[in-house]
């Protein structure tokens, strides 16, 4: 074992330095009324090199796709090629302003227009909006489009059907858009149960939300039949594009019968996963839904690109036109790959997944013995029963070997689930190495595994505390630190009183 992650004693930046917050150097004779003037900002007052060193050290305690293998199932953590970063750093990308006149940004509009056309060709959809800033945002936008469509027909359809293997964001997005969620079970093959779908369909059905291949990595081969069932009842089909990486060039949501979909550009088209930062979740629709797409749309007339507004549009879902620098990366990736290249991407993603799956099974159990697409789910249930090693323990132990953990405990219908997605960007050597480690962990001392990781910046974190006491803003942190200080001071007072009592001094 040779992996060691950096470990620094790093203070929170808000606790660094002792000069307080940044003071604003506002001139005294300024015309801003005194009640509107701030004297300081909620930013600690530090030197530039203190800030740079702080974040450089933190970045060395982190782990990303540039550090090593990252088989996080469903998330498609493929390598982000550097040519896309270079192109998105050009001044024509970084130095434009969203309020510039159309004629000043024709090149940017052309890029977005062509990206829309490319995504439409890949997906079999007719029209695209690049506005949504993330996959779940795309889902929400898609749900609003479906709602607007039914309302336009004067129909009250309140239910969205979601299979039990769906990504958690699906029911959440449907609920956020005001729908009631109806969950249907999988059958013994790990696919949607057609009779359960038929039983759930009614005149109240607004849509079926589906990802194909599903989260078990299994292709829903009855998709055309399912589309027929939903369409015959007047409902629409929504495609969660999270798993598009498995089928590009082989089939597409359009021919499967889907009416609305979102793309995760950070999954399929190799843009960075935001980690809370900028992302992109474009939405695609069939022609009959095009008027409902978010405004403005990019249109081409007499060789000039324009931003146009349709009266039926659901409106804006994000400021301006989406995260442009992310769109540039996806555009570069699509052009670099070409249609043949994108087909190879999906083929290799499926090949890598099946290769790795066959190295791990039967040592690990695999529920639903079907051919997998780009990802697969194995179970550590037997290992838990026999050696008390859980899926969580395996995932923590993997970190000691410099490998990111797979997704665990999802989908929830598989006990002790480990969901593995190697992606097409990994070599056979990496896959072999990962498989060897997965198999060797099975035989390791359970105590060793249960107390791992050892070689990382931090050991096991307190997940309960992290979930319940999430502090993400500086203001919240200041309040928290203030509370802590108050508690400490009270504690000190109490201690002093006790010691006074003890010594009897006054």
């Amino acid at each position, binding site marked *: 074992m040779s992996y060691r992650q950096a470990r620094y004693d790093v203070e929170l930046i808000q606790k660094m330095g002792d000069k307080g917050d940044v003071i604003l150097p506002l001139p005294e004779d300024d015309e801003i009324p005194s009640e509107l003037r701030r004297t300081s900002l909620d930013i600690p007052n530090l030197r530039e090199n203190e800030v740079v060193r702080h974040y450089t050290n933190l970045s060395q305690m982190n782990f990303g796709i540039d550090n090593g293998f990252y088989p996080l199932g469903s998330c498609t953590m493929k390598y982000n090629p550097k040519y896309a970063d270079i192109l998105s750093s050009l001044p024509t990308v970084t130095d434009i302003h969203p309020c510039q006149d159309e004629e000043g940004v024709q090149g940017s509009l052309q890029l977005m227009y062509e990206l829309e056309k490319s995504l439409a060709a890949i997906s079999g959809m007719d029209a695209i909006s690049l506005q949504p800033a993330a996959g779940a945002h795309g889902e929400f936008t898609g749900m609003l489009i479906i709602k607007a469509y039914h309302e336009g027909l004067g129909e009250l359809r309140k239910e969205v059907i979601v299979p039990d293997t769906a990504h*958690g964001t699906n029911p959440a997005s449907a609920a956020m858009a005001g729908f009631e969620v109806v969950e249907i079970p999988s059958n013994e093959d790990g696919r949607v149960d057609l009779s359960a779908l038929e039983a759930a369909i009614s005149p109240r059905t607004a849509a079926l939300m589906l990802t194909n291949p599903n989260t078990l990595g299994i292709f829903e081969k009855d998709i055309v039949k399912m589309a027929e069932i939903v369409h015959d009842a007047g409902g629409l089909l929504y495609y969660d594009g999270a798993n598009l990486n498995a089928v590009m060039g082989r089939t597409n949501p359009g021919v499967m019968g889907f009416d609305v979909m979102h793309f995760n550009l950070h999954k399929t088209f190799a843009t960075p996963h935001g980690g809370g930062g900028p992302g992109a979740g474009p939405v695609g629709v069939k022609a009959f839904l095009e008027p409902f797409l978010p405004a403005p749309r990019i249109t081409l007339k007499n060789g000039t690109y324009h931003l146009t507004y349709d009266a039926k549009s659901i409106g804006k879902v994000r400021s301006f036109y989406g995260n442009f620098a992310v769109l540039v990366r996806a555009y570069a990736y699509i052009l670099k790959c070409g249609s043949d290249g994108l087909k190879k991407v999906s083929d290799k993603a499926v090949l890598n997944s099946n290769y790795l799956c066959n190295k791990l099974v039967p040592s690990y159990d695999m529920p639903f013995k079907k051919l997998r697409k780009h990802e697969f789910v194995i179970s550590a249930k037997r290992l838990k029963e026999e050696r008390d090693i859980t899926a*969580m323990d395996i995932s923590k132990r993997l970190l000691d070997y410099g490998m990111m953990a797979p997704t*665990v*405990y*999802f989908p*929830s219908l598989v006990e002790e689930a480990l969901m593995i997605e190697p992606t097409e960007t990994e070599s056979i050597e990496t896959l072999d190495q990962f498989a060897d480690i997965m198999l060797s962990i099975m035989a390791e001392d359970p105590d060793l595994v249960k107390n791992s990781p050892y070689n990382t910046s931090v050991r096991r974190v307190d*997940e*309960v505390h992290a*979930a*319940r006491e999430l502090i993400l803003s500086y203001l919240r942190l200041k309040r928290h630190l203030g509370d802590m200080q108050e508690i400490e001071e009270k504690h000190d007072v109490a201690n002093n009183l006790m010691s006074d009592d003890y010594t009897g001094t006054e």
Partner: protein
Amino acid sequence: MADNIEIREDLRYTTNDEWVKIENGNIRIGITDHAQQQLTDVVFVELPKLGTIVKRGDVIGQVESVKTVASINAPVNGEVIEVNERLDDLPHLFNESPYDEGWLAVIKMKDSSEYDDLLDADEYRKKLDE
């Protein structure tokens, strides 16, 4: 089934791992020891609203753990007449005391015969063994 799962003989159960206790014609409900072990550490609970009229099988609450999110369903038709508000601040009561302090709600049954349709301890044990 693991030997360390507590199943109380005097309670009734659902196939969705809720327990049901009859009290003066009303029922008190919660999640079973098996359910809390499967969930692991519970960090958040969405309680049912007082006065809600519920149908059997309706989702009346959500339990979120560090591992997953699970729904709690109404085991009978009726009305929610009491909820355990302590769970808002102390969701780990689900883990520490699933059958006592971790109860979720009290429901006034519409039809008391529905209680008899629920699984008894033996039937629930058999269900877990499957």
